[in-house]
Structures are given as structure tokens and as C-alpha cells.
């Protein structure tokens, strides 16, 4: 009964979404306040009913209701309860329901926290989000109903969740990622609403900025968790594969990074308005494209659940409607919102423009690399694959190019700046960064030019930021007042940029200094790697709740001192008979030690063993966490709470602009 109830709730949600997409929009067109005022209530209803629907599916999973097809295919009575819950989104239908629920959460959040917005704008924004919800709800109901039953033919037990997904990281990775993906729909909705209203002023940017920052921060966390999961769960110690599905989440992130910077220019200076709108459309379209790539099965990877052409076609059509519709609207309306403000060569605007161009180019190169195999296949040119070397060759120089400008950014001034001032402020940090970066790799023994370059760039970012913070605080009469006067959005920027610097160091150090060795080892043997002695003590059997495993017990020592006891496993899951590698990791701020089991070799109980020494690999994820934290900090800025006052002020600004 509960699944039918969930199905019914989903249908109600669709009806509410249809109303939300149409009535407030009609109200905004006819200036009918009553119709417009319905929008927040409809948004709440959408949240309630998609929440009920999601809860029903979760109950079906937790109660082992194997008459529901999705449950039968993706759960098992032996599965631990927490994984039964996360199995809700460990499959195509359920993850789509999660998509819908999160979209409803965002819609309701906009309805709740934007009450001070003019009703005209709010109703348009919510209507656009309602339209997106219509698309995904009908996708769910028409092509991938999560509540489909297996009656008759109910199996006695389920087929189990894919063992790769039975992991704590995977419980929160999809929700965080979707918070980011779907969060860009808010920026998109604001952009479309602004185009519909024909008024793209600074207040528009101010309204959508906090939402975009939150979405971006969630996406950062989601991608970071995915990378971390791949590192410890896939058993080969890699953390980024340029897999099409990783790219699918990375492209919206790149476009989103460009968007949050371009929004800053639009808000502060009223520039790049049409460009910002285009980026908002672009970022959300890439989110949809990502969903298409992952859900249609045109690309194969761990993430691809379904290979049903009808589903791919549906998303493709929806994508075409969204992209085509919004670009048409853009073409019709964008010229009307041109700006008349100017800036000089040396100015913060130019630096942020560089940021935008670099990130956009990076997005396009990743997009090209991801779609190239599809394109060649469609043209009948053969089955190509584009590997990591392509992406690395394109991506690394682009990021290296970005950092010098990024260091200048915080110190620079809006509108007009001078090279003399930059030189006066940043000559010292530049020399210090150069000196540190060039000497620090000496500590590691063998000199590595790439690490030196990364350290110079990271040092440049760090010291430039430090210099700027110091300048700001020095200008205030007391330190306390200086701290209080500095807005939260500034601190958010500082933290996020520091995170980026940490990322750069982590990525380069771990790629350059990692030592990996695949060996044949048997109990009693030992191997030394980077000064760490890995001793294979014994081979044991292990029995888990729903799997059996061979376990290789290792003791790691350094100079005779015990560092860690590690026990990697080779698991065989009982329900699905799948084999899985469970790596053992001793994590540290400056190095990770990683052991994974391959397969038995020969008859004498020997195993293929993979030993890794990975320096500074944590810096990458810590950096990503810092970036996300920075994104969240910006949102508490007081400025965003004074929206009403600001919106009237900027209306005056526009009037003045029109006179000029």
C-alpha cells in the first residue's frame, strides 16, 4: 500500500508543479497579485508531496518490500540498515526521486528566504523552478517509475546493492552533488526571471549571488567526496580519472566558478550583465547535460545505471527545450540590458574577466573531450576514447595560467588600478613566493621542477592574500574594528582562495612524489617504500554482515618503530557473488600509506599486492573543503539581508543610468 501512496504523492507533486509553472507566470504577465501570491504556497506543496513520495520509497527499502522492483534489484535483507536507506538513491529511479526532492527543497527555500523580493520577481523565479520540476517529475513518472511492482513474481530476497556503493562516502556523495547540480537551477531561474522582466540590474545579481554560492559550495563538496570515495573504494589509489561522469559534475563546477566571479562584477559594478545571464544558463544546462550523460547510458561507467533509450531521448528533448528556450529568450531580451559603465586595462574587472575566460575555456575543453567519442561514434568515425593525458595536457597549463592573475585579484581595485601600485604592494610577496617555492622542494631530496612551480604559484596566492588582509586591517583604527568592518563575503573569498592554493599543492605534490608498486607478496615477506617497511604478517579470513573476505594483515614500521597496522581485504559479497577490493589506508596530513590486494598468484598463498606512498594527497580534499567553507561563509554577509533597501536603491541607480 505504501508504494502506491508514494506513487500517488508523486502525481500530486506533478500537478502542483504544473500549477507552479503556469499560474504565477500568468499572474506576472497580467499583473494579477492573487495569482502571483500563490507561488510560495505551491512551492511548499511541491516540497511536501515530493517529500512524502521519497519517504515512501525509503520505507519500502527499510522494510525489505521486494515486491517493489527497485528494492528487489538494489537491496537485500542482509544489507545493513544504513545502506538500505542509501540504496534509495543507489539506482536510477531512486536517484531521480532524490533529484526531484532536492529541487523541491531549493524551490521551497527560495520561497521562504526571499519573501522580501518583489512579488513579481519571486513569482517568476518560482515559476521557472516549477517548470524544471515538471520536466523531472514527468520524466520520473513516464519513463522511470520508482514504485513499479513485481506482482506476481515477487522474489524472496533482493539482488543486493552494488558493493561499490556500500560505503559511508556514498551515503552523502549523491545528495551533496545534487544539492550543487540542482542548486544552479536557482541561478538559472533568477536569470530567466530577469530576462522575462527585462530588468537586469545589480539587485538581480545581489539576489542570486548567495544562492549561487551555496550551490557552488555544495557541488565542490560533492565532487570532493566523489574523488575521495574513488581513492579508497576503487582499490587502485587514483583520485581523479577524467571519467565522463566525473566530467559531467566537473563541467557545471567550472562554469559555476566562472558564474560566481562574474556575478561579483555584475553586483558591484553593474558590468558583464548579459554575460552573467548567459553563464547562469550555461551552468544549469551543463547540469542537465550531466544528468543526460549519466542517466541515458550513452556513456558507460560505474555511475551509469540505466541503458534505456527512451530515458536518454526524454532528457535530450528536455535539455533542448531548456537550452533552446532560454537562449531564444536571451537573444530577444539581452540587448535591452546592455551596460554603459567602463573600466581600464589594469583593474579588477579585467582580472575577473581573465578568470571567466579561463574557466569557460576549461569548461569547453572538458566538454569537447567528453563529447568527442560520442561525436565520432555518431559520425561513424569509429570508437575513440579520450584519456586522461588529453585532459591533463589541456587543463594543467590553463590552471597555471590562471594563478598569477588570481594572486593579483584581491589586491586590485575596481575600475582603474596602476602597475606601480601593484608593484609596491606585491613585489615583496612575489619575491618571497619565488624564494620559498624554489627552495622548499630541496627538503624532499630530489629536486622537482613541477613541485617548485606549484609551490611558487601557491605561495603567490597565499602571500598576496595575506598582504591584502593586512592592508585592510591596518587601515582600521583598531584590529577588532577592522575585523568587524570586513564583510563576511571577503573572508569567504580569502578562505576559498586559500583552499585553491592547498589544492594546487596537493594535486601537484601527490602526482609528482607518489610511489606506486605492484608486487607479488606472501606472508612473512616485507617491502620498503619511501622509508616505510611494509611487512605482510599473515593471511586471514574475515566474515562481514553480507560478505566474506580474505584479509592480508600488514604491519608498517619506520626505523623499527611501528607506524600502523593495515588490513586490506578482498571481499566476496554473498548475494551478488561480486568481488570487491577494500583498500587499507593510513592517512596523514603529509602522506598516505595505501595497501590493496590484487589476486592470488601461484599456489603458495602469495597475493598480488599494491603498495602506495602518496604524499600530501589529503591537501587536495582539505583544499576543496576550504573552498566550500568559503562559499558558505559568503552567504552570511549582512548585505544579503538588507535586500529590500538595496533593491530600491539600485532601482534609483538604474533611473540615473537611463538619464545618463
Amino acid at each position: 500500500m505504501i508504494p502506491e501512496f508514494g506513487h500517488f504523492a508523486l502525481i500530486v507533486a506533478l500537478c502542483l508543479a504544473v500549477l507552479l509553472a503556469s499560474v504565477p507566470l500568468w499572474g506576472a504577465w497580467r499583473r494579477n497579485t492573487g495569482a502571483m501570491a500563490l507561488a510560495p504556497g505551491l512551492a511548499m506543496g511541491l516540497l511536501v508531496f515530493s517529500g512524502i513520495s521519497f519517504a515512501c520509497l525509503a520505507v519500502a527499502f527499510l522494510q525489505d518490500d521486494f515486491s517493489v522492483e527497485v528494492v528487489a534489484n538494489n537491496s537485500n535483507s542482509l544489507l545493513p540498515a544504513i545502506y538500505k536507506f542509501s540504496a534509495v538513491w543507489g539506482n536510477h529511479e531512486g536517484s531521480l526521486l532524490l533529484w526531484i526532492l532536492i529541487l523541491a527543497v531549493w524551490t521551497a527555500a527560495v520561497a521562504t528566504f526571499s519573501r522580501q523580493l518583489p512579488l513579481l520577481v519571486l513569482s517568476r523565479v518560482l515559476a521557472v523552478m516549477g517548470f524544471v520540476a515538471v520536466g523531472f517529475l514527468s520524466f520520473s513518472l513516464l519513463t522511470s517509475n520508482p514504485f513499479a511492482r513485481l506482482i506476481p513474481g515477487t522474489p524472496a530476497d533482493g539482488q543486493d546493492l552494488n558493493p561499490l556503493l556500500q560505503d559511508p562516502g556514498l551515503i552523502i556523495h549523491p545528495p551533496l552533488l545534487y544539492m550543487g547540480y540542482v542548486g544552479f537551477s536557482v541561478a538559472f531561474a533568477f536569470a530567466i526571471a530577469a530576462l522575462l522582466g527585462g530588468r537586469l540590474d545589480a539587485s538581480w545579481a545581489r539576489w542570486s549571488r548567495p544562492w549561487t554560492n551555496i550551490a557552488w559550495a555544495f557541488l565542490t563538496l560533492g565532487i570532493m567526496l566523489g574523488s575521495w570515495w574513488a581513492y579508497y573504494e576503487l582499490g587502485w589509489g587514483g583520485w581523479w580519472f577524467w571519467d565522463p561522469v566525473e566530467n559531467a559534475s566537473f563541467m557545471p563546477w567550472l562554469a559555476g566558478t566562472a558564474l560566481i566571479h562574474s556575478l561579483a562584477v555584475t553586483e558591484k559594478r553593474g558590468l558583464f550583465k548579459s554575460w552573467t545571464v548567459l553563464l547562469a544558463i550555461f551552468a544549469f544546462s551543463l547540469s542537465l547535460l550531466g544528468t543526460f550523460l549519466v542517466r541515458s547510458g550513452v556513456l558507460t561507467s560505474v555511475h551509469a545505471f540505466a541503458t534505456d533509450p527512451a530515458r536518454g531521448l526524454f532528457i535530450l528533448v528536455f535539455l533542448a527545450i531548456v537550452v533552446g528556450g532560454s537562449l531564444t529568450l536571451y537573444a530577444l531580451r539581452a540587448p535591452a540590458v546592455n551596460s554603459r559603465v567602463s573600466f581600464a586595462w589594469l583593474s579588477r574587472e579585467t582580472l575577473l574577466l581573465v578568470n571567466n575566460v579561463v574557466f569557460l575555456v576549461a569548461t569547453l575543453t572538458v566538454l569537447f573531450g567528453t563529447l568527442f567519442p560520442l561525436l565520432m561514434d555518431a559520425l561513424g568515425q569509429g570508437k575513440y576514447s579520450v584519456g586522461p593525458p588529453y585532459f591533463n595536457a589541456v587543463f594543467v597549463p590553463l590552471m597555471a595560467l590562471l594563478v598569477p592573475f588570481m594572486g593579483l585579484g584581491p589586491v586590485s581595485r575596481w575600475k582603474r588600478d596602476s602597475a606601480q601600485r601593484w608593484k609596491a604592494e606585491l613585489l615583496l610577496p612575489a619575491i618571497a613566493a619565488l624564494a620559498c617555492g624554489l627552495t622548499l622542494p630541496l627538503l624532499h631530496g630530489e629536486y622537482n621542477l613541477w613541485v617548485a612551480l606549484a609551490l611558487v604559484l601557491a605561495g603567490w596566492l597565499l602571500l598576496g592574500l595575506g598582504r591584502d588582509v593586512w592592508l585592510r586591517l591596518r587601515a582600521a583604527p583598531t584590529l577588532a574594528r577592522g575585523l568587524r568592518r570586513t564583510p563576511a563575503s571577503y573572508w569567504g573569498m580569502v578562505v576559498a582562495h586559500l583552499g585553491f592554493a592547498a589544492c594546487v599543492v596537493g594535486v601537484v605534490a601527490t602526482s609528482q612524489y607518489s610511489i606506486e608498486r605492484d608486487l607479488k607478496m606472501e606472508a612473512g615477506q616485507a617491502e620498503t617504500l619511501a622509508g616505510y617497511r611494509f611487512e605482510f604478517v599473515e593471511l586471514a579470513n574475515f566474515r562481514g554482515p553480507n560478505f566474506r573476505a580474505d584479509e592480508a594483515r600488514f604491519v608498517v614500521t619506520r626505523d623499527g618503530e611501528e607506524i600502523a597496522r593495515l588490513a586490506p581485504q578482498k571481499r566476496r559479497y554473498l548475494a551478488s557473488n561480486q568481488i570487491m577490493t577494500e583498500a587499507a589506508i593510513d592517512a596523514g596530513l603529509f602522506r598516505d600509506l595505501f595497501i590493496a590486494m590484487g589476486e592470488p598468484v601461484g599456489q603458495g598463498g602469495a597475493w598480488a599486492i599494491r603498495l602506495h606512498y602518496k604524499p600530501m594527497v589529503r591537501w587536495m580534499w582539505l583544499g576543496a573543503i576550504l573552498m566550500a567553507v568559503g562559499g558558505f561563509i559568503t552567504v552570511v554577509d549582512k548585505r544579503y539581508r538588507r535586500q529590500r533597501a538595496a533593491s530600491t536603491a539600485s532601482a534609483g541607480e538604474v533611473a540615473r543610468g537611463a538619464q545618463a
Partner: protein
Amino acid sequence: MHPVRKQRLIIVLCVVLFSSAAVGLMAYALRGNINLFFPPAEVAAGKAPVGQPIRVGGMVVEGSVQRSEDSLHVRFEVTDYQARVPIVYEGILPDLFGEGQGAVAAGVLDDQGVLQATEVLAKHDENYMPPEVAEALEKSKAQMKGANMTKGQGE
């Protein structure tokens, strides 16, 4: 210069500069880093280039997997039921690798017609097969059927 025009110039120059750099990089990066998939039949027919990175995939032939006793050296064959390609690899094979299962290997073909693999991928779960492999198998099946039919007509 008029400030607005100057600003446009800045924007246009930035865009042109960075995108041409990107196009250059992409062209350079694409040259050596894409590889084409070949079914075993085409490799056997000599259609695959020697000394260039390619991918070969098919079903791992039953009984063909030979592991070395004292190292991680492994040799196996993949087939599309028309031809077989021997593959050698040094390292740990993926969890889902097995005889009679689909696999794709990336590497370089040597002049003996052996693929020196640098990477071996296996299917991800029971229902999944790399699409290239599935298509190659289907094609060879269709061809075999066609061959049988012509033979049948001849008799």
C-alpha cells in the same frame, strides 16, 4: 579611445588570446592522446596500426589466461569469435576480470601482433559489457550468420 570601445577591445582581446591558446593546446593534446577501438577481427586482418596507442576488446578466451609464477606478468587472449588477439600485461587485473567475461585492454600492438597493454578494464557488473565489445560481438555474430547462409545456399 572611447572608454566603452576600449573596454570591448579588452574583452575581445582576452577572449581571442585565451581561446587560441586553448585551441592550440587541444590540438596538441588530442594528437597523441586519443585511441581508437579495434575488434580482434580487425587486428588480425592487420587493420590496426602497430606502435600506436589503441584499445582492443572482446571476451577473454576460456583457458587462455596464463599467469607467471614469480611476477605479476599475465598473458591472455580476447576474441570476438572470429579472431583472437594475445595480450600481455604486467600488474594487478581488475576485480571483475575473468575468463569468459568481457574486457578491454589499452596499449600498443607490437610487430608480433601482441598487444602490450598498459591498462586492462573489465565490466562493472553482471549485466554490463563495454559497449564497444557488445557491438563488435553482435557484428561478428551477424557476419557469421551471413556466412552460414551463403554457404547453405551454395549447397
